[in-house]
């Protein structure tokens, strides 16, 4: 596989949200606004790239029987580093994402890429894979956040487009499921056409 296709497959062919259906919890919970969606996506991207690099480097020497616990500890370490960084530099975002920052540890995208890609490929390829999948995840979250913010509070990235309250249900829990469901339908329809 060429370097370019390793990088770009995360956007459409192996899009983590719409095709692989991984990491649905943060996808649904943090996309109340487009900005939160982007923040969550970038936080996941950070952990994904670094853990992919380290795991591809240590994979040859990790015994097969304990590889899952070892990978989880590597991922948890980067999540803890991320928590410190976000507390220091983006305290507002850290607060609004809340529980879902530590929960990146159990995001199936990260462990999934470690298991399916990083443990079998070189360091550079793994970094590119992490970058591509992470960006694909960020874009999906941003689209979901955009739709929910626009319908739910009538704004885009915090800019008020029309006055009034919007349809509140889209910011709340049921809206998340509905919007993701319908976006997936749209994705299926467009992807089939190609």
């Amino acid at each position, binding site marked *: 596989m060429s370097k370019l296709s390793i990088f770009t497959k995360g956007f459409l062919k192996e899009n983590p949200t719409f095709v692989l*259906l*991984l*990491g*649905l*919890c943060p996808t*649904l*919970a943090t996309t109340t606004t487009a900005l939160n969606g982007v923040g969550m996506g970038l936080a996941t991207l950070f952990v994904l790239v670094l853990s992919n690099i380290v795991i591809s480097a240590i994979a040859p020497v990790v015994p097969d029987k304990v590889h*899952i*616990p070892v990978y*989880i*500890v590597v991922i*948890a*370490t980067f*999540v*803890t580093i991320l*928590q*410190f960084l976000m507390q220091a530099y983006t305290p507002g975002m850290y607060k609004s994402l809340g*529980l879902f920052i*530590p*929960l990146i*540890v*159990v*995001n*199936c995208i990260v*462990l999934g890429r470690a298991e399916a890609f990083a443990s079998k490929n070189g360091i550079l390829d793994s970094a590119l894979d992490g970058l591509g999948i992470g960006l694909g995840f960020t874009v999906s979250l941003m689209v979901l956040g955009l739709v929910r913010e626009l319908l739910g509070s009538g704004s885009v990235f915090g800019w008020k487009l029309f006055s009034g309250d919007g349809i509140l*249900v889209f910011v*709340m*829990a*049921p*809206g*998340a*499921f*509905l919007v*993701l*469901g*319908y976006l*997936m*339908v*749209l994705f*299926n*329809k467009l992807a*089939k056409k190609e």
Partner: protein
Amino acid sequence: MEFLLIIISAIFVNNIMLAQFLGTCPFIGVSGRLSTATGMSGAVCFVITLSTLVTYLINKYLLVPFGLTFLQTIAFILVIAALVQMVEIVLKKISPSLYQALGIFLPLITTNCAVLGVALNVVTKEFTFGGGPAHMLGLGEAVVYAFATSLGYGLAMVLFAGLREHLDLNDVPKPFRGVPIALVTVGILAMAFMGFSGIV
């Protein structure tokens, strides 16, 4: 009385799946059939309650006294992984048929964010029940909260599995088939559960 409030609030008002979005992946994954959904709920219920008990004690007597609370995430996930391994061994011995049915999803409880989410929630967040003052949970309250939360997860999963078995019999438009129609159904289910808000 307070325990009753905790239970009602955790099962209906703040349902972990339908209001807090924790544990969505296995929810979509195993809810295709009623029997696997029931088995999975039982396993999750056991793991959540037990792991919350253990992580609460570790946090209180090990991490907090030594100023190591930043290690919460790493310590908790290790405890949960070990517990899941144990449940797997026990289940293999007692009920091989259930073990077969749960298949891949049993080791995946480790990465079910509901488990880590509840464990982290009870040691970091302040709770209010029935207009009382906000406070950190005691050990008894934490375990009751964890148990009730997992019951709520089970309830949502079993309800949804029942709905999904009927969905299969219907003629669903092609792009909607599979996960999209499931998500739309969960959305409507979540809307129904919103009716409970305000009772506690």
